[in-house]
């Protein structure tokens, strides 16, 4: 196997790989990243923690998106400076032999980002839709679409996202619009509901919800017609995600007080429950939920593919399918541990830790890699000049 791998590399990775990267444009890339950010930004949170100190998520979440965008832009600028075509390449240039280690960590974070919304959806399915059905069955019904999409590759993910993300946004808008009659300004109070310090911490913590989606664009930058398109896609996705987060969180805040939000599981699903006039369409919130689940599947596939791509690139695996299948299996395993596992408590503690410092885990290596790679390329240039 090793020989095969070496030969493949000797002949040039391009000739022997099956990365299923393809080429997509800014619109498709932005759609995929937006689906991931919107789903993560609306459905992944543990509400108890999020609304613990009041309701200010309509301020903090858009700020988190903007902070993520800032880190993304910085990483992209450093990549350009170091001449890296994708994030994996940047890691190689920056960390040399240690690159696979860092890439592995980022891949794990991407798989974690896939797990987070999917786990919420599985729990929602179990609690709200399929009474008396085991979690494992729901996972078995949820994961095949994610795996299928991840195996089809980045191009298919981008194009599917381009098809479905506008519908996702339309459904979100429709759900929000349907609850307008129940909006009450008093629910926003105490305004802004959190101390400045608390809000700042929340902004930092929630950055790890949005940053992976943007970093995945950089992981697949060469499939996006280059870094420039990836940057444009990231900017568009972040702008739209900030807007969506702001509108949806504001709508939630106008519908429920912070105390209730803290007790509701997936409050977006309950946004129409306040409506006293329960026309038939108000009951279609379950259908809306399915649309969001579709977005969750795309988001999951996007994260898993990106994790697999980075992993394959770093460990010189020439086929995307084994790491993608592995990533999906890991995500499914994490879901099962969370909902039914014996070590649930330990896992939840780890999850809390990741939620708290995930931001550092994500941002620091990227920034360090960028700086190191930029310095190395500069040194290389100087050496070349001296030699000349």
């Amino acid at each position, binding site marked *: 196997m090793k020989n095969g791998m070496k030969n493949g590399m000797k002949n040039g990775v391009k*000739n022997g790989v099956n990365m299923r990267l393809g*080429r*997509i*444009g*800014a619109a498709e890339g932005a759609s995929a990243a937006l689906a991931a950010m919107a789903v993560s930004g609306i459905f992944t949170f543990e509400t108890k923690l999020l609304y613990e100190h009041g309701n200010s998520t309509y301020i903090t979440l858009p700020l988190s998106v903007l902070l993520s965008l800032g880190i993304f832009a910085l990483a992209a600028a450093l990549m350009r400076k170091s001449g890296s075509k994708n994030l994996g390449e940047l890691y190689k240039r920056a960390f040399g032999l240690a690159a696979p280690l860092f890439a592995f960590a980022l891949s794990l974070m991407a798989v974690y980002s896939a797990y987070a919304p999917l786990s919420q959806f599985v729990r929602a399915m179990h609690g709200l839709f399929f009474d008396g059905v085991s979690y494992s069955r729901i996972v078995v019904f*949820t994961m*095949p679409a994610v795996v299928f999409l991840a195996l*089809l590759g980045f191009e298919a993910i981008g194009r599917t996202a381009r098809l479905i993300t506008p519908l996702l946004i339309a459904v979100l808008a429709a759900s929000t619009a349907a609850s307008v009659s129940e909006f009450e300004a008093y629910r926003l109070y105490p305004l802004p509901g959190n101390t400045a310090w608390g809000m700042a911490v929340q902004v930092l913590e929630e950055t790890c919800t949005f940053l992976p989606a943007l970093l995945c664009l950089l992981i697949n930058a060469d499939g996006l017609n280059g870094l420039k398109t990836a940057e444009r896609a990231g900017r568009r996705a972040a702008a739209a995600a900030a807007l969506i987060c702001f509108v949806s969180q504001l709508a939630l805040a106008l519908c429920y007080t912070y105390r209730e939000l803290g007790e509701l599981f997936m409050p977006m699903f309950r946004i129409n429950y306040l409506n006293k006039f329960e026309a038939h369409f108000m009951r279609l919130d379950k259908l809306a939920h399915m649309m969001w689940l579709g977005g969750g*599947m795309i988001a999951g596939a996007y994260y898993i593919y990106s994790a697999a791509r980075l992993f394959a690139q770093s460990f010189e695996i020439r086929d995307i399918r084994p790491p993608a299948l592995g990533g999906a299996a890991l995500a499914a395993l994490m879901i099962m541990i969370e909902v039914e596992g014996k070590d649930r408590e330990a896992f939840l503690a780890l999850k809390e830790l990741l939620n708290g410092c995930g931001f550092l885990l994500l941002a620091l290596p990227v920034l360090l890699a960028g700086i190191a790679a930029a310095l190395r390329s500069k040194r290389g240039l100087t050496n070349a000049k001296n030699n000349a």
Partner: protein
Amino acid sequence: MKGFDRLLEKLNFDAPDGRFELFETEAGEPYEALRERKERSEKAGNGSKTGKAGMKNAEKSGISRSVERNERRFRAFFNADENSDVIFRRVDTWAGRDALLIYMNGMADAKTVSDFVIRPLTEGNGAGRIRGRGALESSVQIAEQERESRFFKVAEAIIEGRTALFLDGERTALLLETRGFDSRSVTTAENERVVRGPQEGFTENLRTSVTLVRRIVKTADLVVCYRSAGGKNGTGLALLYRKGVANEKLIAEIEKRLEAGSAKGARIVSSSGMIEQLIEDAPFSPLPQTLATERPDRVASFLMNGAAAIIAEGSPFALIMPATAAALLNSPEDVYMRRPLGTLMRAVRYIGVFISLILPGYFVAVAMYHQGLLSTEVLSTLIKSREMVFEPLPFEMILLLFVFQLIREAGMRVPGSVGQAIGVIGGLILGQAAVSANLASTVILIIVALSGLGNLCIPDYSTQIAASYFRLGFVIAAWLGGLLALTGALVCFAAYMADLKSFGVPFLSPIAPKTFSKRPMLLRGGIGRGGGKGGKRSGAFDGSEYAEYGADDWLNTPHKGGKGRFGRRRA
């Protein structure tokens, strides 16, 4: 480890994808590719003498005195090496002067050319051989003649079906009225009916079918390549495209696939449907990757925008490639009707298709898992209607869908009026009887009927069948896992379509990927200029159906505003 290697090998890991694809060019394309495109664009602009640029150059010059030179120039102009439709006939006249006849096969009446032009030129007319200037012209027994010295006018006349006679030493050509072809065999397009617009359809005669297209596409760059279809029975086919407009990589790919199809050694190829199977991208895909049509106007519309078409001997259907979802869902009627009406018709069709695909599955999911989504009124009616039905609801749905297909199939296989009668009997009597016999409930019957009607809205027959497969899949998914499984199935369906390519062009363009085409797919574009911004597309072609299906961004070759796409094979 060896075993593991083998396992990987068997699982087809490490194998490159190997699919052919045409590049879309988005604004974010890397600089290298842009430069390459520019270079190609320039090259194509200088090198090609065909197309509009070629025509303009040629128009400036007149007819040469030398027959050889004229032949050379017209051969170049008409791409005669590839385009076997243009006939160049050198004649040794009775007067000893060299003459050249150029006419378009199929457009000009071959018998008229042979009997009243070639024979008098070689044998002289019966009235006696008058020597001197004008004697040869006089011997041609065609009443309507015209002298023309301009190159472009002569070319235009040839395309229209007239015959051009060049005599050595003359600076003018004699244009002879030889237009005409056998039109008795042309019948109406039975399977793609339109209320407004042309009614004629292709015939089994290849020459007639090509001529039908030529009568609409009267451009010099229309190339018709005749070749074998690949079967051992020696059926021929014609590959039609516009030289300089169609993407060269696309044409090369089609030719390669045709060649490979021939190499497969099929014993008999007797229909365009068989050719389709020999050349398509994904043989196991339920969705077609070529558009089969029996309408010459439709083929012409697609050709004008750079697509290619194959017409096979013995088959009244042309295959248009590449085909996208929008092309398969649009009808020529959309363009023949006025814009608001066309848009409305299209919207109704899309809704019909959506209902056809989703409604049975959705209903099964809701009725089996999420009853709270049904209104109280529907619930109580449904319960009542299913009171005495013995089979489970999803099974009932599948059974009725099968019965619907059965009625449809039976209706199609029997002659005209009997087929219609079967449809009526099947629909009314069988439905009523099924309800009376407690085999079906009325609500499910309505849903199946609605879904069936929606399915029939799809203009393309293969797509109709594919849609019914998917519909069945959605029903089964909904049965197994309610809305959860239905959502998964829908996402997989969308992903499958997003991944599918027809001759390198993404199946879902112009939506996914989003293309330069600024028009939304649902709204029908205008007939006139102004489809793309900044003159990205030639306005004259924008009204055609094809311009709206989005693949035009992949097809126009570089000299048309630098919008070329370059083929490549996926690593």
